[in-house]
């Protein structure tokens, strides 16, 4: 989840594949809409894998029939945040699920520096490890 395979973060679906084309994105959204999921466009510039709550780009889109409207929103978001991560999530409101069922990245920064390993020494010479994104060391909005 957190390795930097080919200098690309790998979160959500399809992230080991080359970037999806618009047609492929539409096909995925078509699938989500056919199952009645509410599709959402989100963006962030903090790629840490534990950063689950990204900023929402507009409202979640309920009751859509066709992916064209969502693709329009994705393109708006890409235009507004060309150097952020943008992902599409599909929320399933079925009782018992009530959770995002799909999530995939549709836009990434041109250059992704990845993560460094941070070691910190605890009591009794024990070591704890965590990862820290190189990009996130700069303030928000100046990261990519």
């Amino acid at each position, binding site marked *: 989840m957190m390795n930097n395979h080919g200098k690309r973060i790998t979160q959500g679906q399809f992230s080991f594949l080359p970037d999806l084309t618009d047609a492929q994105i539409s096909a995925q959204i078509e699938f989500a809409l056919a199952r009645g999921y509410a599709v959402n466009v989100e963006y962030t510039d903090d790629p840490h894998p534990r950063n689950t709550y990204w900023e929402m780009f507009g409202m979640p889109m309920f009751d859509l029939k066709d992916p*064209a409207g969502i693709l329009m929103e994705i393109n708006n978001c890409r235009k507004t945040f060309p150097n952020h991560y943008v992902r599409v999530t599909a929320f399933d409101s079925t009782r018992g699920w009530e959770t995002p069922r799909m999530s995939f990245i549709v836009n990434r920064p041109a250059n992704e520096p990845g993560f460094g390993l941070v070691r910190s020494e605890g009591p009794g010479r024990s070591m704890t490890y965590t990862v820290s994104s190189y990009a996130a060391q700069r303030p928000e909005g100046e990261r990519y």
Partner: protein
Amino acid sequence: MGTLSPGAAAPQDSELDLGGLLRESHALEVIEALDRELVGLAPVKTRIQEIAALLVVDRARAQLGIAGDQPPSLHMCFTGNPGTGKTTVALRMAEILHRLGYVRKGHLVSVTRDDLVGQYIGHTAPKTREVIKKAMGGVLFIDEAYYLYKPENERDYGQESIEILLQVMENNRDDLVVILAGYKDRMDTFFRSNPGMSSRIAHHIDFPDYTPEELFAIARIMLERMQYKLSDAAAGALREYIALRRARAHFANARSIRNALDRARLRQAKRLFAGQAAGVSRDALMTIEAEDIRASRLFREESAGGDA
């Protein structure tokens, strides 16, 4: 022509079967159903057949590689008095366009000013966009579209909504078809003050009022669907009622007829209750008698000298 791959395209001089194309799309069934189930509306039906023919020809041209650079503009405007079937035809139109492959999903999103225009600054654009996104792949039907533009208030947010609509009608032609509907005279005023809107709408279709004979036929169809029937005397009473009602204010064509029938059903139920000692037969439950219709306020006012 230029870059056609040899396998994919038909040769330049081959002949296409237009009728076959139309049959293949199954649009004919919808058009025939429209013809069968909707009474009157001759100019509307002719126009819809013309549009369907144009779309089939366009499809045929595309198959031969002679498509122009612009797909045909399909935005429409339905004008006519209330109750003349604008919404019903719009629903069928969505179905026809879907079968001919001009909209991907063929659903109809029916909205009015309230769904498009916001209540404060910055509210309108997201609201309009949300509706447009819902309508994509189908037909956006804007009822009483002239309310979008209120000339007496120059800060009205309706104008913003119109501008977004115009932009989408131009740029997302293959994603959605917009149908505006409203009364003829008010739509004319609306188009005069929004020439951009008028020029982006290719098809202006006017829905004529129904003749008394057509209204009677509509009443027959409605009753049939509700599983009722008219006694012979009631049929005569209904004809008289239609003639009287047409002359009155706020006459809303088929809608007025439906309301009248609903009231007749009410009176029929009351009559059956009043005479229940005799027991009720299946036939009595289905039949509307002349007295159920003649009990209408219209007849009483008529006999009282017509002072309403």
